[in-house]
């Protein structure tokens, strides 16, 4: 029987299974296949905070969603078109997101009475009519995998573990994906265990051939390569792009990097990545705690390196006092906050944008710091280079607000030509003639960076209030007032690019303003409402402090301003306070990114309200 091949412009696939089933790896491999094929793509892993929650339970479900298309896409997709469920828990946790008519591929081997009971199924959904709205494919993946590996001599348990590769093989066949990359990857990954490598390759092929030879699948699908801008691309996650941006900043400034940090989800991958690149004069110190991490970074900055610390919201809370010391001593410092759900320990593996006000105000005293937020996984690279530019030029700690969604999500990245990257070189103070530790550059208001070891510039700095110019301890009321205002003026005067408004129709009355990782869903929603004939303008802020100089005028040139955020309206609060605009908040804090569809509805309602 010949299968029919349908052409699609985009597909969203979600792999879901137990956290021990290797779903992240499976998703990752399918992503690489899509990238190698030339599709545009965006991914969203979703996994529990527990490393191995009890097997087969709802809390133990791990999933990986991948959106790939033949055009430029902005999000990992709202809902899957295809759901691969490796067990009843994965089915139960994810099937609510599958639209009617969606493709559901189920590993039937796990649907025992015991496993069904464990997640509260009274009857087997594969046997009753509860799934009739979907195109269900029941595949005994474990049995088929074990069968395919029979001749390898591998034990049943080891063989069964390769069933995720069976699923990958089947999906690769269904979507006409190239397979060489995955086979090569498996052989490299398990280079030290050739029998396991071979087993995984065999399972992968078994899945592929299963699709080809059985008659269960009448249709296969093709998604053509996307027409992306000319250039060389790779796939990259936000955390990797952040780490690469830090490496680049060191090279562009010709300064060593010292990362002082403490492991924390979802930021640890930045430490893992940077620790591999010592050849770029990068030192990574895994400190005893968050406070030591930033202390080490600040100490290194004092010594003339670029001090960097990476953490998530709870870590920022612990680092606040040292950030304040960085503000007072006016030293460069890069503080990476990969935000997660809060407060307290909150939702470690889920995303949120609720640290904006902590970044802005979370210190004692008047303690202003610049804030930079990347808008997508690949944008982390440029954004962190820019954050370092600010830290070096203005001698200040800079808060970089990434979040769980872009940190772990991935997308294609057009690799920049390193020759085009900005020059970040700085001048250290060296001239003892009239040297004053707290004199200021008239343009930037930055003080000299006078590092220990420089003859004749011996001086003392610290957290006590400084006398203007000399930097000596001063409790003088007028001086304190002056210094507070000077520190504020320095941050307020930081040069940041104007915000660019995207309004292709040019006649929008409604402006949607976002920041950080919501760029994708807001941008996708804006495209959708425009297609419905409803004009909307979109401004996305990378610089949250100071705001771009044109922001006030931009806000005031629209009848209505709406601000979607994954918090309870933190940016909206700042915009209302600073610009006296009646910005309307749309908020959601579910630990998951916005869906383009829901924002489409929100925007459409607002636009219709304004037009009416």
């Amino acid at each position, binding site marked *: 029987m010949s299968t029919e091949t349908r052409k699609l412009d985009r597909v969203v696939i979600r792999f879901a299974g137990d956290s021990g089933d290797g779903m992240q790896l499976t998703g990752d491999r399918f992503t690489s296949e899509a990238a190698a094929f030339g599709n545009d793509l965006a991914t969203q892993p979703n996994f529990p905070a527990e490393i191995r929650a009890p097997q087969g339970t709802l809390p133990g479900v791990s999933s990986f969603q991948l959106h790939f298309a033949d055009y430029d896409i902005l999000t990992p997709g709202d809902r899957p078109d295809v759901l691969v469920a490796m067990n009843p828990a994965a089915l139960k946790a994810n099937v609510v997101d599958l639209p009617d008519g969606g493709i559901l591929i189920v590993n039937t081997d796990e649907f025992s009475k015991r496993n069904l009971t464990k997640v509260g199924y009274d009857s087997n959904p594969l046997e009753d009519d509860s799934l009739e709205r979907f195109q269900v494919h029941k595949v005994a993946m474990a049995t088929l995998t074990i069968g395919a590996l029979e001749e390898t001599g591998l034990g049943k348990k080891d063989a069964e573990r390769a069933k995720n590769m069976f699923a990958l093989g089947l999906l690769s066949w269904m979507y006409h994906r190239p397979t060489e990359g995955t086979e090569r990857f498996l052989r490299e990954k398990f280079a030290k265990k050739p029998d396991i490598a071979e087993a995984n390759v065999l399972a992968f092929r078994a899945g592929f051939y299963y699709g080809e030879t059985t008659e269960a699948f009448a249709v296969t699908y093709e998604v053509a390569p996307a027409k992306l801008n000319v250039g060389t691309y790779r796939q990259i996650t936000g955390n990797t792009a952040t780490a690469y941006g830090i490496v680049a900043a060191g090279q562009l400034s010709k300064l060593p990097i010292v990362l002082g940090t403490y492991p924390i989800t979802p930021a640890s991958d930045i430490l893992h990545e940077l620790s591999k690149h010592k050849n770029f004069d990068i030192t990574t110190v895994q400190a005893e705690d968050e406070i030591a991490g930033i202390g080490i970074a600040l100490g290194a900055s004092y010594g003339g390196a670029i001090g960097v610390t990476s953490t998530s919201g709870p870590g920022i809370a612990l680092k606040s006092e040292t950030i304040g010391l960085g503000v007072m001593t006016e030293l460069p410092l890069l503080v990476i906050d990969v935000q997660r759900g809060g407060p307290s320990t909150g939702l470690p593996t889920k995303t949120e944008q609720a640290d904006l006000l902590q970044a802005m105000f979370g210190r004692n005293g008047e303690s202003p710091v610049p804030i930079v937020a990347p808008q997508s996984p690949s944008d982390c690279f440029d954004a962190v280079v820019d954050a370092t530019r600010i830290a070096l030029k203005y001698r200040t700690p800079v808060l970089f607000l990434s979040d769980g969604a872009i940190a772990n999500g991935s997308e294609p990245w057009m*690799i920049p030509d390193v020759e085009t990257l900005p020059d970040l070189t700085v001048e250290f103070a060296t001239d003892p003639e009239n040297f004053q530790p707290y004199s200021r550059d008239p343009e930037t208001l930055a003080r000299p960076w006078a590092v220990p070891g420089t003859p004749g510039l011996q001086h003392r700095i610290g957290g006590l209030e400084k006398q203007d110019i000399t930097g000596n301890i001063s409790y003088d009321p007028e001086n304190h007032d002056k210094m507070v205002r000077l520190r504020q003026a320095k941050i307020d005067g930081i040069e940041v690019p104007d915000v660019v408004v995207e309004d292709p129709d040019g006649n929008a009355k409604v402006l949607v303003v976002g920041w950080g990782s919501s760029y994708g869903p807001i941008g996708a929603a804006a495209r959708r409402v425009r297609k419905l004939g409803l004009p909307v303008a979109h401004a996305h802020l990378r610089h949250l402090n100071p705001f771009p100089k044109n922001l006030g005028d931009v806000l005031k040139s629209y009848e209505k301003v709406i601000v979607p955020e994954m918090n309870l309206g933190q940016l909206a609060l700042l915009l209302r306070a600073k610009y006296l605009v009646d910005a309307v908040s749309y908020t959601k804090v579910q630990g998951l990114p916005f869906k383009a569809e829901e924002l489409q509805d929100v925007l459409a309602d607002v636009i219709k309200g304004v037009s009416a």
Partner: protein
Amino acid sequence: MTAIDIGLPGLTGVPTTDEKQTARDYKSDQEVRWCPGCGDYIVLNTMQSFLPSLGLKRENIVFVSGIGCSSRFPYYMNTYGMHSIHGRAPAIATGLAVARPDLSVWVVTGDGDALSIGGNHLIHTLRRNVNLKILLFNNRIYGLTKGQYSPTSEPGKVTKSTPIGSVDHPFNPVSLALGAEASFVGRALDSDKAGLTSVLRQAAEHRGSALVEIYQNCPIFNDGAFDVLKDADEAQRRIIHVVDGEPIRFGREGEYCVVREGFGLAVAKSADVDASDIVVHDASDLNLSFALSRLSTQDLTHTVTGVFRRADRTTYDDGVRAQVDEAKASKAADLSKLLHGKDTWTVVG
């Protein structure tokens, strides 16, 4: 920066000068603002007198402190200095030492700063063996906050925060440091300039973390805490000064000595024991150093001074630098190659 080996492992890499230095060169232009009679003055003077003998370039010396009375120290030294935040000086100094092998980095801290709010950083710095010299001014009280008990105050201590007496059990800072496997631990009295100078010198020469506990009198909130050690007669009976390689005797004409007892050590009259039973100090023996630290009692019936432990162990900062140097030597820093990674694809027009 020029790396110059001056034969003192702790200072390898720190540039020296032929210019003659005096104590005056190390005094900053800032007015010293400790209370009259504070032990900190003596320590400051001792440090300013001692540093010229190292012959280092002054700009390559850095003092980093936390918060507390003693932490004002850097302001008075004409070197580089940072008065940082409460308890965090060891962390900040670690970052500086890791980044800059050409600096001689000193940490000045107190019993509250190092052992209470900064206890975690202290033990981890010692465990890692970062090349820092940590001077712990122990006055057994919180001075800057005006007189609350500290982690080294004696049980029952009546203070503003413990009107009917503290129920806290105190740290023995030397035991704590040795428990963290510090590679160098010493103790001296603020008033003993020669003894303090000797310990400071050995600390400076040592490559690795050196913790020096300095008994320091607070004349305002805990006056006389160490007076029994400053009375000539009492001191003879109480202070056990140890020197590496020498039998441990103390008192007039070596009246007393230290002998083994069970798993630890005890004080005996030299006349009552065989000379061969007198313990010979071995600063490389961690167990012996620890046992010596236990001879020091909170009530100062006995206290041990000198260098408890001095052992060679790779320092953290040398270790991480070696990894970076090796990586730099074996792999070019090719940014473009890094950004490309293994899997790329090209879109052509």
